[in-house]
């Protein structure tokens, strides 16, 4: 509120295969390993590890949702650079596939007893949940 002039944040989302997003927006929210982080203009320099969840940002009155998973975030001088392992734009998410993946992951988690397997299944589950959440948010049911 105090800093209306520089009321913009540049967001760059990079995945190993390509640059997915490069926009100027009002605010950015993304999942870190310690919970959801919101970046407003004028945020202090920050480097943090990213978790699995929904990334969203406002620009020009519209909100864009994406599911992201794993990586590193770099915030500096009103530029947010996200180096993510996987990112999917909400409109391109196939919800039925994500739901199937979720079921599979839940089944795998309950069936396994090796610690590493449970961790993997839990990770898959989180990923599927993030995709479903991003897709539902995109289709209008905003409940963040």
């Amino acid at each position, binding site marked *: 509120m105090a800093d209306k002039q520089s009321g913009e944040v540049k967001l760059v989302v990079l995945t*190993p295969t390509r640059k997915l997003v490069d926009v100027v927006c009002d605010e950015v929210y993304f999942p870190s390993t310690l919970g959801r982080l919101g970046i407003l203009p004028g945020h202090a320099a920050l480097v943090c590890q990213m978790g699995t969840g929904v990334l969203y940002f406002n620009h020009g009155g519209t909100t864009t949702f994406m599911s992201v998973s794993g990586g590193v975030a770099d915030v500096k001088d009103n530029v947010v650079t996200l180096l993510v392992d996987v990112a999917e734009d909400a409109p391109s998410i196939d919800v039925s596939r994500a739901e199937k993946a979720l079921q599979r992951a839940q089944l795998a988690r309950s069936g396994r007893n090796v610690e590493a397997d449970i961790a993997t299944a839990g990770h898959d589950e989180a990923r599927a949940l993030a995709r479903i959440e991003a897709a539902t948010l995109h289709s209008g049911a905003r409940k963040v």
Partner: protein
Amino acid sequence: MPANLKDLKGRIKSVKSTQQITKAMKLVSTAKLGRAQSNVVQARPYSQGLSHMAGRLLEVLGESGQHPLLQANESKAVTVVVLSSERGLCGGYNANVSKQALRTIEELESSGHTVHVVCIGKKAFQVLSRKWGKGLVPRLASLEDALDAPSTLGGDKGLTLITTPFDKPTYDMAFRLARGFEALFEEQTIGKLVLVFSRFQSALTQVPSSETVLPIEPPVKAMGATAVEPIFEPSVKALVEAVLPRYLANRLYQALLEAVASEHGARMSAMDNATRNAKDLERKLQITYQRARQAAITTELIEIISGAEAL
């Protein structure tokens, strides 16, 4: 000489059809090269960002907490990963990569290392099993099998061919492969990981090169001092642990992409040359054919005239 004329006609036809094939192959490679090249270019921002990040984090961390992936270990075993193509007809591409691989292996062996070669793409595998791994029993494994059985990835003197095609490399493949090598390195089964592949410079130039990817050499830090120390969450150490495996996977991925682009580039220029040669050959044959035809007509005319004169 009617028989000769017929032969010539046959040859012209065959040269023409060869030319058609090479031309088609060139067009296909051109299209594939375009895609492969854009993959390489599009993957660049991420890898630049990542190496920049890794450099920064390691600088902050300093000497205090050395990550195991950064340190050379005791093991004398080295794994050399050779990236080549599945198919030929791409000029000197595979030969150059194989030559580079042989040179690298020789260097490593003369400095007392035990070399295990993992081939991706069977062309270099064929050359290496003939020229280097004569007494060895080569192992063939799909990517999954190779990851399940770490001994196929290194530790002893051996030769492995990964049969899973890598003509369209995905990051997932690179990541899993990197994890496999990482595990071997961390348990000190291997002390070094070297990549041999063809660097893509342009459609016409591909440079075969060898790169040591493990132990990870810290990326050169960005110039200029960072004015404000950023907040690190959860901690610099955790971040380094998150970044380094990704850095390794990305190196592998980048190499895979470049190898594919190089292959298509090499094939494109090879096929372009072949088409041009075929064209030259066709023209020469055409001239010979015309001459032979003219000679045949002349002989026939002379025969008729001298026959008429004799009457």
